[in-house]
C-alpha cells in the first residue's frame, strides 16, 4: 500500500476526523436552515452556552475512560451554585463565596470518589444516589428560592467579552489544554487508561488505583465548581435546580467523542468535538425555528445514532 493511501486510511478511520467531518456537515446544514447561524456573532454567542457542559465533559472523559460514570454532575452544579449565591446573600464577600462554590463542588466530587473507592461500589449506583442527594440538599437548604442580587462585576465570569470573544471561552480553552496535557502527557494519564483497559492488570502493575479514582472524581468536582461559577454568572441567578439535566449533555458529548462506555479509550479532542456538535445542534435547531419539543427528540436519537456509529467504527479499527 502506498504511503498516501496509508495516510488516507489512517485519516478516515481516525474517530476524531470523522467527528470533525460530522461537525462541518452539521454546520453546513444548520446554515442552510437558518441564515443567522453561520455568523460571527452567533457562533461566539453559542460558545457562551457550551462552556459549562464543556468543562464538565473534560472531567467526565477521564471518568469514562476508567470505565466509571458520574450522573451527579448536574445536581452538583446546582449545589455549588446555591453555595455561591446563598452564602453571598448571607453576608459572605463574593470572592469568598465563589471560592466556597469551588470547594463545595470539589468536596461533592470527593464524596463520590471516597464512596466508590472505599466501599468498592459501582459508580453508577453511587452517583445515582448523589444525583438525588445533591439536588435534594440544594433544594432543601434553599427552600427552592433563588438569589439574583449580585454586584455588577460578578457578570464578568459568564457575560464578559474580550473584544468579541466571550470571556469564558478562554477559560474553557485553558482547561482543555490542561486536561489534555494531563491525560496524554503525564503518568497520571497513563494510569487512567491502564485502569480502563484492565483494572486487575493495572493493580498488579502498581498503579495506585484508589488514589487515581479519588483524584478524577474530585477533579470533575472542581470542574463542576468552575462551571457553576460561570453558569451562575451567566444566568445571574443561583437556584437549586440549576444544571439539572446537564449530565445527559455531558455524557452524550463524551460518548459522542468516541470514548467507550466500557472504558479504555477516549480522547480530549473527541470530547471537545462532541461538545461542539451538541452545541451546534441545539443552537442551530432553535435558530431554524424548530420547536423545543423536536430538539428534545433529536438529541435523544442523536445519542443513539452516535454511539451506534462509534461502535461500528471501533470494530473496523481493530
Amino acid at each position, binding site marked *: 500500500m502506498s504511503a498516501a493511501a496509508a495516510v488516507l486510511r*489512517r*485519516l478516515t478511520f*481516525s*474517530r*476524531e*476526523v470523522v*467527528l*470533525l467531518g460530522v*461537525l462541518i456537515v452539521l*454546520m453546513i446544514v444548520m*446554515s442552510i436552515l437558518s*441564515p*443567522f447561524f*453561520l*455568523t*460571527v*456573532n*452567533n*457562533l461566539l*454567542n*453559542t460558545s*457562551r452556552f457550551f462552556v459549562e457542559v464543556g468543562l464538565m465533559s473534560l472531567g467526565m472523559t477521564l471518568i469514562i475512560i476508567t470505565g466509571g460514570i458520574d450522573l451527579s454532575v448536574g445536581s452538583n452544579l446546582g449545589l455549588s451554585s446555591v453555595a455561591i449565591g446563598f452564602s453571598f446573600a448571607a453576608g459572605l464577600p463574593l470572592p469568598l463565596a465563589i471560592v466556597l462554590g469551588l470547594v463545595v463542588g470539589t468536596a461533592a466530587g470527593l464524596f463520590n470518589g471516597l464512596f466508590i473507592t472505599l466501599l468498592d461500589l459501582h459508580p453508577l449506583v453511587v452517583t445515582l444516589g448523589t444525583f438525588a442527594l445533591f439536588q435534594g440538599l440544594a433544594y432543601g437548604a434553599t*427552600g*427552592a*428560592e*433563588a438569589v*439574583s442580587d449580585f454586584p455588577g462585576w460578578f457578570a464578568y465570569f459568564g*457575560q464578559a467579552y474580550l473584544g468579541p470573544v466571550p470571556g469564558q471561552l478562554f477559560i474553557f480553552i485553558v482547561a482543555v489544554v490542561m486536561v*489534555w496535557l494531563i491525560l*496524554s*502527557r*503525564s*503518568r497520571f494519564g*497513563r494510569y487512567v*487508561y491502564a485502569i*480502563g*483497559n*484492565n483494572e486487575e492488570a493495572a493493580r498488579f502493575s502498581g498503579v495506585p488505583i484508589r488514589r487515581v479514582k479519588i483524584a478524577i472524581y474530585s477533579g470533575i468536582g472542581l470542574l463542576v465548581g468552575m462551571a457553576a461559577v460561570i453558569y451562575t454568572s451567566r*444566568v*445571574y*441567578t443561583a*437556584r437549586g*435546580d*440549576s444544571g439539572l*439535566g446537564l449530565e445527559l449533555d455531558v455524557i452524550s458529548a463524551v460518548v459522542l467523542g468516541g470514548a467507550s462506555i466500557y472504558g*479504555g479509550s477516549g*480522547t*480530549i*479532542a*473527541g470530547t*471537545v*468535538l462532541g461538545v*461542539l456538535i451538541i452545541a451546534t445542534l441545539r*443552537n442551530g435547531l*432553535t*435558530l431554524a*425555528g424548530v*420547536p*423545543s*419539543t423536536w430538539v428534545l427528540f433529536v438529541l435523544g436519537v442523536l445519542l443513539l445514532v452516535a454511539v451506534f456509529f462509534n461502535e461500528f467504527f471501533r470494530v473496523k479499527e481493530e
Partner: protein
Amino acid sequence: MPVKESKMHRKGGRNVSTRQMWGFKGVRALLLMALILIAASCGVGQQAQQGGGGGGGPTKICMMPKLVGIPYFNAAEKGAKEAAEQLDIQLVYDGPTEAKAALQSQMIEQWIQQQCSAITVAANDPNALAPAMKKAGDAGIKTGAWDADVAQDARDVFVNQATFEAIGYKMVDLMAEQTGGKGKFLVVTGSLTAPNQVAWLKYMRERMKEKYPEMSIASVQPGEEDLQKGIDITKNYLQANPDTAGVFGITSVALPGAAEAVKQIGRQGEVAVTGLSTPNEMKPYVNAGVVEKFALWNTVDLGYLAVYVANAQVEGNLPKSGTFKAGRLGKVKMLAPDEVLLGPPVVFSKENIDQYDF
C-alpha cells in the same frame, strides 16, 4: 520524567510511537478544527452587530411561554396565532420544555440573533431573565412580558391578565360563597416561589382578614405542576385534617388535582373546591358537581392581546395611558404607561363552561 526520556509512549496499554501519540489523533484534529472555525468566522457573511430592530423586513414577534406542553400555554398560543393572522405578521411561539428561567434566558439570547422585531416573555423568574431581556433591548428589539412579569427595567411593557388583587379576592369570594364565609383551608399551589402565586396568596390572606375573618389558610402545599402529586398531597392532607372546609387549587394543574382527590375520597359537596384553572380540564369536575365555580381569565385572549401589544410597540403606537384598541377585544385599559390590563377575571360554572374551549 519517563515521558520525555523515551521515544516510545504507552497509551491505553499499547506502545505507540510519538507520531501516533501526537499526530493524527490529537493535535491534528484540534488544528483542523481551529482552522475551520477561523475560516468560517472570517469568510462567511458578517451580519450587522445588532440582531434585531424593526424596519426592513416583515414584523416578527417572538413570544415565549413559561414552558410548552401545558394546556394553559397552548391556549395562549391559540390566541397569539389568531392575532398574528389578523395582523398579517410573523409569529414565533416557542419555549423550553421545562419551566426554568435559565432555559428561557438562553433561548432569548438565541432569539436576539434571529432578528425578532419584538420579544415578549412569560417569565419563570423576573430577575433571572433581566440580563437577557436588557440585551435584547440594547439590540433594538422591543421588549415585553405577559402573564408573569420580568424586572421592570428589563422590559418596555407588561401585559397583565388581571391584577393580583382581583384574582386573590375573587378566589376567596368564590370560596366564601360555598362555605358560608368560615373555616380552615388548604391551598395547593405550583411552586412556593413563583412570584404570581406568591402575590395571589398575599391578597387572599388580605381578603380573608378584611372581609371573612373566620376564614383562614391552614396550609400551603406545592404541587410542582404535577397532577398526581397534587392529587396525593390533597388526599393526604384531607385525611390528616378531616375538618378542612375547602381546598384552593391556584394553578391550572393544582385545581384539577385537588378536585380529583376530593372526588376519590368521596367528599364532594362536603369539601369545597375552587381556584384557577382552564375550563377544558375542569369540565368533568364541574359537571359532576365536585367544583361549583372557579375563576380564570380568558387565556386565549391573553395571548391575542400580547401579540397586539407587541405589534403596537413595533409600530410605535402604543399609548401611555387611557385605552388601547386591540382587535376583537375592543378597548383595553392601560393601567400604567408600561402595563396593559386584559380585564376582570372570568368565573366559570356549570352554566357557561361549555361555551369555552381551551
